[in-house]
């Protein structure tokens, strides 16, 4: 049983329907609905639907809400203290004394739901028609075929026509003669809705006519092909999605590693801090600004950036600065930092994962094909990653700080000689890299668990991206992230998640043997240290 029918939907429906003459309904059908038994009542619903009269929706809605009653031989709708005649819609002068409820069982209620959906098919509002068609595509009753066909005649919208054709075909499959069945099977092959495959399979099982069987097989092939394309599109999107996440996680690392040759093992924890900052902002919005809750992310993004950047800069000033020229020690010290950060977060927020809720506009998704749904949260993250990338690129190529950062990356000593304040650049660049990690955490909080160990699961991946892409150029990081994302998802579809990951890691290990500087290396002569 779908949600309870309310008066408002019925009224909305009635006003939305095409024709509104005061013409009376088919009295026989209404009476059959009221007094009939079992199948008779279902037939009556079919008859009412076929008529496509706006009053039919009111009567059926009333039946669903338990407002349809009988008074001796008359069928009436009782709403509060008012009673109207179900057939004519006239208001009754006085409430009849002896009334009896018309009891609708579950089967009847289901039929009423379907019928109401079918009636919505002829609403002038496209959104209502589209929703109704979608609902019916899930499973329509044979009795609705006439109305569906009627709606199809009038329909001009392409999307809805596709759905309606599909519904009509699936209904004709069960009832029509050989010729109609043949046509229906062909239509199903072309329309390829999400249940076309099971429908065609059932045809192959039960169909006796050879021609129809043959046609069903061809159609099935078509549908399979289309599903395959859907799978490919889904894979493509999953690859882009994973790639953009890897990009977000690795971008900051690429900056700090490229600039300072420092492997920051605490990078994952900076991501985690960004995620927790998002969590805190979310909680603040929930308690202080519940009205604007949906927009908390807009506030969380800069906060996550600022918090992580601040932590990063403090780390640079207090620990990492003193270890320049000793990369292996830096690795160990930053690992120690990561342990301290993990435990600190555990002490403050507890060891359990915390709940970060998606804003309403990020839930749900776009249905691209019958078997491909692109979740909004993923789409937003892909766009977000693109925006962050663009921002970093602009910052590095269009600002004075960017110029300094690039200069120090290429040749620290020379940059220092021409007056670049390398120490300050280091701090700011480390802050930038850490801030981007915070942004990654903000994004990750929308699609995964937020817990103290969040960063640990991304650290190896983001290193691989940086190592594979080579340092000093954003393009390397982008290609490496997207490449790894695709490779991972592609292999995953063949070999399962764990094996895919192992294969990718082994591939990277082999790749690094061949090209230790990564895919993209800065051109120029660098002194080996």
């Amino acid at each position, binding site marked *: 049983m779908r949600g309870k029918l309310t008066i408002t939907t019925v009224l909305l429906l009635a006003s939305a329907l095409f024709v509104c003459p005061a013409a009376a309904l088919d009295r026989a059908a209404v009476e059959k609905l009221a007094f009939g038994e079992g199948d008779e009542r279902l037939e009556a619903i079919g008859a009412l639907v076929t008529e496509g009269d706006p009053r039919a929706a009111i009567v059926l809605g009333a039946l669903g809400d338990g407002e349809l009653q009988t008074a001796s031989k008359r069928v009436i709708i009782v709403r509060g203290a008012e009673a109207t005649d179900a057939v004519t819609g006239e208001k009754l002068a006085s409430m009849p004394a002896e009334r009896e409820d018309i009891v609708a069982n579950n089967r009847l209620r289901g039929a009423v739901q379907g019928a109401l959906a079918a009636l919505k098919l002829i609403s002038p509002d496209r959104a209502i028609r589209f929703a109704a068609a979608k609902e019916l595509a899930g499973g329509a009753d044979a009795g609705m075929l006439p109305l569906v066909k009627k709606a199809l005649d009038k329909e001009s919208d392409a999307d809805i026509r596709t759905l309606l054709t599909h519904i009509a075909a699936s209904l004709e499959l069960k009832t029509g003669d050989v010729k109609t069945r043949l046509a229906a099977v062909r239509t199903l092959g072309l329309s390829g809705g999400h249940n076309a495959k099971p429908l065609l399979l059932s045809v192959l099982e039960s169909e006796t006519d050879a021609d129809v069987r043959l046609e069903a097989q061809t159609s099935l092939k078509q549908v399979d092909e289309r599903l395959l394309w859907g799978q490919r599109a889904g894979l493509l999107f999953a690859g882009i999605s994973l790639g953009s996440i890897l990009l977000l996680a690795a971008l900051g690392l690429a900056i700090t590693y490229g600039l300072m040759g420092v492997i920051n093992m605490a990078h994952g924890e900076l991501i985690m801090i960004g995620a927790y900052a998002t969590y805190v902002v979310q909680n603040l919005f929930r308690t202080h600004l519940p009205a604007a809750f949906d927009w908390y992310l807009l506030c969380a993004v800069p906060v996550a950036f600022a918090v992580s950047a601040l932590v990063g800069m403090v780390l640079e000033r207090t620990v990492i600065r003193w270890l320049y020229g000793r990369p292996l020690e830096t690795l160990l010290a930053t690992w120690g930092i990561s342990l301290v950060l993990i435990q600190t977060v555990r002490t403050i927020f507890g060891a359990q994962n915390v709940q970060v809720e998606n804003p309403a506009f990020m839930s749900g998704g776009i249905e691209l094909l019958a078997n491909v749904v692109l979740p909004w949260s993923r789409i937003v993250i892909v766009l977000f990653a693109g925006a962050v990338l663009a921002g970093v690129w602009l910052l590095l190529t269009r600002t004075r700080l960017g110029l300094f950062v690039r200069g120090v990356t290429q040749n620290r000593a020379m940059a220092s000689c021409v007056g670049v304040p390398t120490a300050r650049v280091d701090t700011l660049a480390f802050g930038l890299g850490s801030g981007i990690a915070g942004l990654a955490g903000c994004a990750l909080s929308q699609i995964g668990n937020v817990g103290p160990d969040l960063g640990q699961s991304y650290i190896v991946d983001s290193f691989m991206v940086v190592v594979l892409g080579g340092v000093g150029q954003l393009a390397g990081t982008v290609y490496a992230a997207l490449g790894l994302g695709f490779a991972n998802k592609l292999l995953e579809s063949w070999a399962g998640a764990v094996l895919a990951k192992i294969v990718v890691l082994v591939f990277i*290990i082999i790749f690094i043997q061949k090209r230790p500087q990564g895919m993209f290396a800065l051109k120029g002569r660098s002194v080996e240290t």
Partner: protein
Amino acid sequence: MTGPLTATFARLYGASGWAALSAIGFVLFVVFPALNLAVSPDSAFHVSAYWITLIGKIMCYAIVALAMDLIWGYCGILSLGHGLFFALGGYGMGMYLMRQIGRDGQYRAELPDFMVFLDWNAFPWQWWNTDQFWWALLLAVAVPGLLAFVFGYFAFRSRIKGVYFSIITQALTFAAMLLFFRNETGFGGNNGFTDFKRILGYTITTPETRMVLFTLSGAVLLGTLLLGRYLVTSKFGRVLAAIRDAEQRVMFCGYNTLHYKLFIWTLSAVLCGFAGALYVTQVGIINPGEMSPANSIEIAIWVAVGGRGTLIGAIIGAGVVNGAKSFFTQAFPEYWLYVLGLMFILVTLFMPQGIVGLFNKWRSAK
């Protein structure tokens, strides 16, 4: 032949050094067994099984620390994959111990419980001949050794060094951990191996067996120390140190550094495998968690705390860090990560020479 031999002895340690080693050997091989086995449990001098296992375990860790020190302290290569070699050794020995359970498992079957649970009918190929002790022991050292040799050959040949090498060893460990987490790999998946009953026919939990394993660990530890000392005081050891300090110059002098690095790297892995084999017999469990990247990094901090480039420092570091770990994880579990993290930070910032360095400074100041 007495001449060169005594010279070798003299090269390894001075008179006081040998005296100290003998004292340690006496404590390990005589005092502990006596206090554990001969002294009654009620006595204040009795050393309980808990301590024997703990010290035995730490001695295995100390072997790993020595192996790490050889490659990192003397050759300047920071491996984040030694946990993998250690665990592989443990798995090699673990397979034998699983076979020794025989039909005493939950399912009373010839196959280990996890295989029965997975509905397997025969041992997979990796388990071939693992009911032979010598084969399992061979696996425990040969598999890590071979893996390290192949991996090291390619890595060193393409001159991967510094943090890059560290990162790809970490990737290797991570990949291996994922592999071992899978049930299909044939090593018990998540749970690994546990519930051992016997080794070489002896019940593994009796005090006597434990003591044999304990003294064996001690002997291997001392042997490794002497072997390491032998290596680093030789010409080979000096070339290693030269590679650490200026690899290019060593190459220009006509040395093929690949061979030196590869040898010490493989030896280091073999030692880890041996330590893993000893470890699993005493601790009684091995699972893929041992391969987690965090464990491998922790090995580096043992060496750093004790003092890089001094073999005795590695042993001290393993003892201090693991002793502290045992204490904190029992007394203040929530503070252990702080302590460990701060250890990483403070040691690298303020004690680059570790405890041994501090001691030397104190002695020379006196």
